């Protein structure tokens, strides 16, 4: 179990790094959640686990909604609860926001009144309702009845309402799990933008690794009521690969280098830490947006995922192939199982995972330290980044 190593010297208002110190147990009739962990929250920290693993309970304890939790919880060195000293700061006094999966908008209030509910009760207002309406693109919906909204709109109102209470920490409990894929990628891109603008630390709970991979910089893995792993996002996903709990994938962040609309591709380059000049191409990102938006994406970091089953290997550089991405790499490990082989490779400092058939592995006589080429189609590079116009409107 590793502690997050993010530095936390004197957190200031504009610093998005905050510390949560957790040491508590909550028992339900058949299930116990026991968490002992310090978490440094830098921008967005993801909490991953199967349903029933205790990740929602973890969030509810931090929020102050589980009064029966024993132990202690503090945020930025301020004690929120300490059952030994009988200290318990009530949910309404914690100044922590929570966005629920089922939005929980107040049905007797309009969109505007829902937003005003949080705004009315905050202590030091900095944001105006109008600013948040603009930020969340709800201005045109503000007079609507909340029952008339679509799922994505409801969650946008729910997030806007939580933002207007101006919390020190925002918790999100599977906020987009009920949404279709397009709306989800819109909302994820939108949430990330808001986080960057407001510099508000967030804890984002989900059972979807691809969602978390796109939005979070750090991952907390919860299983069977305990925190089993805390690591930067890509490392954490590779750790889960090795535990064999998810389909194996390569998780990495790349810098958007240029858009090539004439070829329908966007070129990504490795960042300096990965120390290679190679490029990776994926389907054009800025498909529907304006020229200026295209430019604004350049230089940004894009979290991407490539499934191991989508990467194939080649002994020589595959120059005469329709497959656009090919990179030189060195094999660092080979794991055989019943039907296939999982090959771990390194391209400069970046780890890749390739899953090939046993037959291919034997035929190619793969050995550790061999130099080889890996290849994958542009389509195999997955990212949740939303390319439509709404988020940039």
């Amino acid at each position, binding site marked *: 179990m590793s502690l997050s190593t993010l530095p936390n010297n004197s957190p200031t208002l504009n610093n998005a790094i905050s510390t949560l110190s957790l040491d508590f147990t909550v028992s339900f009739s058949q299930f116990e959640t026991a968490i002992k962990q310090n978490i440094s929250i830098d921008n967005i920290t993801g909490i991953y686990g199967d349903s029933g693993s205790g990740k929602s309970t973890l969030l509810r304890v931090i929020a102050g*909604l589980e009064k029966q939790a024993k132990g202690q919880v503090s945020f930025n060195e301020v004690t929120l609860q300490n059952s030994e000293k009988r200290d318990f700061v*009530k949910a309404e006094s914690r100044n922590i926001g929570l966005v629920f999966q089922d939005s929980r908008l*107040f049905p007797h209030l309009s969109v505007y009144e829902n937003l005003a509910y949080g705004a009315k009760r905050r202590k030091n207002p900095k944001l105006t309702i109008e600013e948040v309406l603009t930020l969340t693109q709800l201005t045109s919906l503000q007079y609507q009845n909340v*029952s008339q909204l679509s799922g994505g709109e409801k969650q946008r109102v729910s997030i806007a309402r939580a933002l207007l209470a101006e919390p020190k920490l925002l918790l999100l409990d599977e906020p987009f799990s009920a949404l279709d894929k397009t709306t989800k990628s819109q909302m994820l891109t939108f949430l990330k933008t808001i986080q960057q603008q407001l510099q508000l630390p967030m804890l984002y709970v989900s059972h979807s690794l691809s969602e978390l991979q796109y939005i979070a910089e750090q991952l907390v893995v919860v299983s069977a009521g305990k925190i089993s792993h805390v690591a930067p996002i890509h490392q954490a996903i590779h750790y889960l690969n090795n535990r064999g709990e998810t389909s194996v994938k390569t998780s990495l962040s790349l810098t958007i280098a240029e858009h090539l609309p004439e070829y329908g591709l966007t070129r990504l380059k490795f960042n300096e830490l990965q120390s290679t000049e190679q490029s990776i191409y994926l389907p054009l990102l800025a498909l529907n947006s304006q020229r200026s938006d295209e430019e604004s994406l350049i230089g940004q970091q894009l979290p991407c995922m490539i499934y191991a089953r989508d990467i194939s290997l080649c002994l020589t550089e595959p120059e005469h192939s329709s497959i656009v991405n090919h990179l030189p790499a060195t094999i660092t490990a080979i794991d055989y199982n019943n039907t296939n082989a999982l090959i771990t490779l390194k391209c400069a400092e970046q780890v890749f995972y390739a899953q090939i058939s046993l037959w291919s592995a034997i035929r190619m006589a793969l050995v550790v330290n061999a130099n080889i080429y890996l290849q994958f189609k542009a389509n195999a590079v997955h990212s949740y980044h939303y390319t439509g116009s709404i988020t940039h409107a």
Partner: protein
Amino acid sequence: MIDISADILALVTTLKMAAVTTVILLLIGTPLAWYLAKWQSRFKVFFEAIVALPLVLPPTVLGFYLLLAFSPTSLPGELWQSATGSQLAFSFSAIVIGSVLYSLPFVVQPLQKAFEQLGDHHLEAAAMLGAGPIDRFFSIVFPLTKASFITATVLGFAHTVGEFGVVLMIGGNIPGETRVLSIALFDHVEAFNYANAHILSAGLLIASLLLLSLVYLLGNNLNSNLNKKQRVTKL
């Protein structure tokens, strides 16, 4: 010529009793219904049974025990007398206390059901936005359960107007103090004064019918508003 001045006095007493009773019922019935809705304990059923008791118990049984309790020789009656200087039994206060107990389920049950249906979801959301318990009650609970508050108020009021046995046992028949419509009606029948009895009976019948129609009308309107909203959501 029928003399109805005594009956008008009885009407005023009845309305006064029902109004005071309803206000007291809402004040004590709301928190009681809240705790019954939120409380999770084996003993909860016992308290629910106590609240529901007046629904099945002959009112004279309740009246009998209250009469014993209110008499100046028993502790509650004695305490009342030393605090207020007047006797509790056969007073306006006595019939109000009796009515509060007797109409309790008509106020507590609809509210308890509404609070149970409301659940914790919206309250948790409100707490996360900085609303304390009292704030949450007035900003969330009350607006979302308004229909049940109207039902509880009308049922509590109407049932108190229609009550007979308890008032008969502990109120006696003092004009302007404890002589309510149902008692006045009984007196008219006993005295074969059917003309007055008809006026009171028909009046009570029509007034009760109107009140209940109002309850169902409000209930239907709120429901159809909800349905309308749901239809729009589906579109």
